């Protein structure tokens, strides 16, 4: 199905020329202003100069200034578009239709993504001061908490951001489940979403060790032992996580790199795929809605 071309935003529409600025010999103002180009409105231009004084200077000046100011973003957008050709794509993305009945339940996915972005930002700031050595980790966390400007706040946001992200991702999944949104043609997006859920929980698990306090340490020991109890692959996974058969200095730096490089990279890539499919397939309509036209058509057939 092909969607109708969405309308241009107002700022980009060709403007009808003002009476005074119409160049002589060109009857239709829309035609001249058109073909997408912005007209020359520099102060020195001869056209329109004659009428300005009679119309009351300041007002015209202000309007002229407004148009000139508008030229800057339009110029930048035009420059980018000329070189990237991305404007049809961006316009298609921004002006794509969202089905009737789209409600607040449909914001949970984007909110989860926003929570991930917040985690990434606070995480980057924490990484600037964190030191993943067993003898230094705890001290660097107390340094962040006690000495740095807003340090405790950023660490708190990272900690509670994880809680919020986990709640949001579960709510998002519950919405998808109860609305039947995982059904044809969105099965693949459901699978990606479940992988994202697992990765999010893995983030919570791997991050728990990093402050290197008693809670995190022993909880991680237990979690890795639980992993080791799995049949066949269990001991190997546990050895991989610990970087050997014992908890050592390697374990902490290994968890650190898993927590801030491997899993976030995977999450970002999978969010990209998830979003691509959302934009491509569209979000579902609430399942209780029936298309009115379809209803009418069906009745006609009968």
């Amino acid at each position, binding site marked *: 199905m092909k969607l109708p071309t969405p309308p241009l935003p107002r700022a980009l529409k060709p403007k009808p020329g003002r009476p005074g600025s119409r160049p002589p010999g060109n009857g239709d103002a829309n035609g001249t202003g058109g073909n997408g180009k912005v007209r020359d409105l520099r102060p020195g231009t001869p056209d329109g100069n004659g009428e300005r004084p009679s119309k009351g200077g300041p007002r015209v000046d202000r309007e002229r200034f407004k148009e000139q100011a508008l030229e800057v973003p339009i110029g930048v957008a035009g420059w980018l578009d000329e070189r990237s050709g991305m404007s049809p794509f961006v316009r298609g993305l921004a002006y794509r239709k969202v089905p009737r009945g789209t409600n607040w339940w449909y914001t949970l996915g984007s909110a989860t993504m926003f929570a991930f972005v917040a985690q990434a930002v606070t995480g980057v700031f924490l990484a600037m001061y964190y030191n993943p050595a067993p003898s230094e980790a705890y001290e660097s966390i107390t340094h962040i908490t006690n000495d740095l400007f807003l340090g405790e706040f950023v660490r708190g946001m990272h900690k509670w951001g994880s*809680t919020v992200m986990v709640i949001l991702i579960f709510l998002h999944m519950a919405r998808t489940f109860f609305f039947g949104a995982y059904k044809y043609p969105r099965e693949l997006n*459901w699978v990606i979403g479940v992988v994202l859920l697992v990765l999010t929980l893995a983030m919570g698990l791997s991050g728990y060790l990093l402050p290197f306090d008693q809670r995190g340490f022993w909880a991680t020991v237990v979690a890795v032992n639980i992993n080791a109890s799995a*049949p066949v692959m269990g001991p190997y996974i546990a050895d991989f996580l610990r970087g050997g058969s014992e908890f050592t200095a390697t374990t902490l730096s290994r968890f650190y790199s898993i927590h801030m490089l491997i899993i976030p990279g995977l999450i970002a890539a999978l969010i990209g795929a998830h979003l691509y499919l959302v934009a491509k397939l569209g979000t579902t309509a609430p399942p209780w809605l029936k298309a009115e036209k379809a209803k009418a058509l069906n009745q006609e057939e009968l």
Partner: protein
Amino acid sequence: MNNREKEDYLREYSILKGEGKSFFPYAIAKDGSMAVITMLVIIVLTLALGAELGPKADATTTSFSPRPEWYFFFLFELLRVVKPPELTFLATMGIPTICLVLLLLLPFFDRSPERNPLKRPIATLAGITTIVAMAYLTLLGALGGSPTEIELQAAGQEDGKQATASSGCLGCHRIGENGNEIGPELTEVGARLPREAIARTLVNPTQPMPSYAKLQKQDPEKFQDMVDFLASLK
């Protein structure tokens, strides 16, 4: 879903989509408001509850009760619900893995075209049951101690634990999961030796164990705590 049902869905969806509004600015306004609310919730939680940091990790601690993040409580609680040790792997890996595979493959075994939750009672009931079960296990996990607390007997001996951990016993002896096996294991030493015997051994040990007579003189309280703790290991 057969091909007809697929086409029916796509047709109906395209009509519903046509009846809708554009993503920008209508949907993005909602998404943006939700992002602001998310941010505010995170900030309020941070300001209200702060970022707690426990004591530094100590690998020699023998009876610290580990608690995971609250959103793993339901998994930990499974450990307690499944009692027999030969079934432990069911609780640790079996049930979670099966649930995860079921979740992952959901669109491949639930292929009916119906989407309304009220018209697919099995799926809706299964979903609600799962949520209630997870909430119940999370609540149990929040109210109860950690699963390993049950196995370790030495609760309520904080001072003794600290003393033992800082006296280097684990350099030679094994207590529970930790420590070396140069000397005899101390996990159940309280069952083998009475309290006085432990104190006597500490002061006047067999070689090569160092004597703790100095500790008894300098810090008798710490010494007593250590003896109490070791005697409580049964």
